[in-house]
């Protein structure tokens, strides 16, 4: 497989189209003087899944929350569809690391909660939620409570809630880190399919190199102290191979190795 052939046509189109999310010179200093981000600039093209990968402390979750509008940046700006971000908006939906499900609400209410907060009436929002509950494979669990579900199923609810917002950009904060290994693999496969079907932009924070290489169209490798984007990696993997063959593919293994050698000195 020729690397140059695969990359160049993709690069040409993304250069013309405006990016879905554009991060311009973002800095974040937390009260107390901890510098989480320092003048970071990064573009997220439409319809792709871009991972933010890096060791802990590199500010990847901070960057994601600034894009979400959950925390303000100290300086710089974030543009989503060319509009500056000041607060959470309809164009973005968030998937939380710890699921953030309300334990007192059923799967149905949790899934429809974003729409409920938007003020949509009950029958309408439940019809939409129903569709996404089915899409994530939780049909039959609409009236279960989160404590009756496994970790993986809970995150499916979190995902269904985000999808039902029909936002252009999905922000995922280490969504699979709290689910077990087998479930995580299944999730990763589902995610790849989702990116193809949904035509949304996914920004995916992870600390797992394998996960990033496996699911991403692009990986932004973030390094700490001072936090910066050290390189953008485009995993050269043929998705048609199928999940198992892909994980044995030499290109996949090489990319994992290459990222690990960049990160190695920053761990510990």
């Amino acid at each position, binding site marked *: 497989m020729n690397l140059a052939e695969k990359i160049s046509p993709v690069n040409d189109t993304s250069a013309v189209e405006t990016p879905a999310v554009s991060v311009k010179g973002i800095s974040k200093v937390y009260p107390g003087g901890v510098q989480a981000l320092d003048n970071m600039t990064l573009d997220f093209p439409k319809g792709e899944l871009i991972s933010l990968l890096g060791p802990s402390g590199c500010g990847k979750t901070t960057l994601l929350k600034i894009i979400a509008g*959950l925390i303000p940046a100290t300086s710089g700006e974030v543009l989503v569809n060319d509009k500056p971000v000041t607060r*959470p908006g309809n164009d973005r*939906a*968030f998937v939380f690391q710890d699921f*953030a499900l309300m334990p007192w609400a059923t799967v149905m209410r949790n899934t429809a909660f974003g729409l409920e*907060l938007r003020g949509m009436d009950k029958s309408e929002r439940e019809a939409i939620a129903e569709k996404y509950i089915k899409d994530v494979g939780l049909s039959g669990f609409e009236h279960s409570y989160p404590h009756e579900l496994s970790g993986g199923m809970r995150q499916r609810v979190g995902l269904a*809630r985000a999808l039902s917002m029909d936002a252009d950009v999905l922000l995922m904060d280490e969504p699979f880190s709290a689910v077990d290994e087998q479930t995580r693999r299944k999730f990763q496969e589902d995610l790849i399919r989702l990116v193809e079907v949904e035509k949304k932009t996914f920004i995916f924070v992870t600390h797992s190199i394998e996960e990033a290489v496996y699911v991403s169209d692009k990986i932004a490798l973030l390094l700490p102290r001072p936090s910066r984007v050290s390189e953008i990696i485009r995993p050269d993997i043929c998705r048609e191979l199928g999940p198992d063959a892909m994980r044995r593919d030499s290109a996949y293994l090489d990319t994992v190795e290459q990222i690990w050698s960049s990160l190695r000195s920053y761990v510990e």
Partner: protein
Amino acid sequence: MAQFIVHPRTLKILSFILVFSAWEYAGRIPVSPAFPTFLETMAALWDLIMDGSMLKAYPETLKPLALGVIISTIFGIGSGIWMGLSRKAEWFGAPIFIVMQSAPLAALIPLLVMAYGIGLTAKILVVCIMAMPVIVLNTFNAVRNTPHSLTEMGRAFQGSQFDIIMKIIVPSASPLIFAGLRLGVSAGFIGAILAELLITPTGIGDLISYNQSIAEYGKMYAAIFSIIVLSVIFLELLEKAEHSLFRPDKRESL
């Protein structure tokens, strides 16, 4: 059969039978001439109900109790939520309620009587002083410790401040708020009886102190017994209300 034996209801009844048998036994030894048996107490309770003195006593006791509990609930939960949401309100409010909680009530009663007389107001205040601090402090702690990710979720999905409080913070805090309410209400019951014993003998407090003074110990314990039963029933209802109002997940898991 085995299921019947370990069923919660069977165990509850068994626990009642045990306590009442022990009481009956202790009364028959007797522990003290002033300590009637369970059956004597029940007979006295029947007399008190039939001769109408219970019917006359309860409205008097329930008035300061109900008003005090309602005031404590509304004001207590309200200020607890406010203190949980705002640091400034916490600095202002927390010391007052902590002092109130640790103040020895019996020592304050003469002061209350001087300020508010021996009427309803002083009694309501006694109930409030007993009931409110634990309601406020529990509510405050519960609201302050709402899981951060849930409120962040509410903001990420563009919930208004009001929606986040009513749909996320309050339900999330409700188990602790209701735990505070249960403690507060039972303290309120104690406060209401204390007020009747220490300020002016009315209602159930009067039944207790009058029957004690004429050595009708059966009736005295019957009056005490009745207020405990009432308090327990009320607390049970409170729990039911909690589960159906805020936490259907708890009801299903039981």
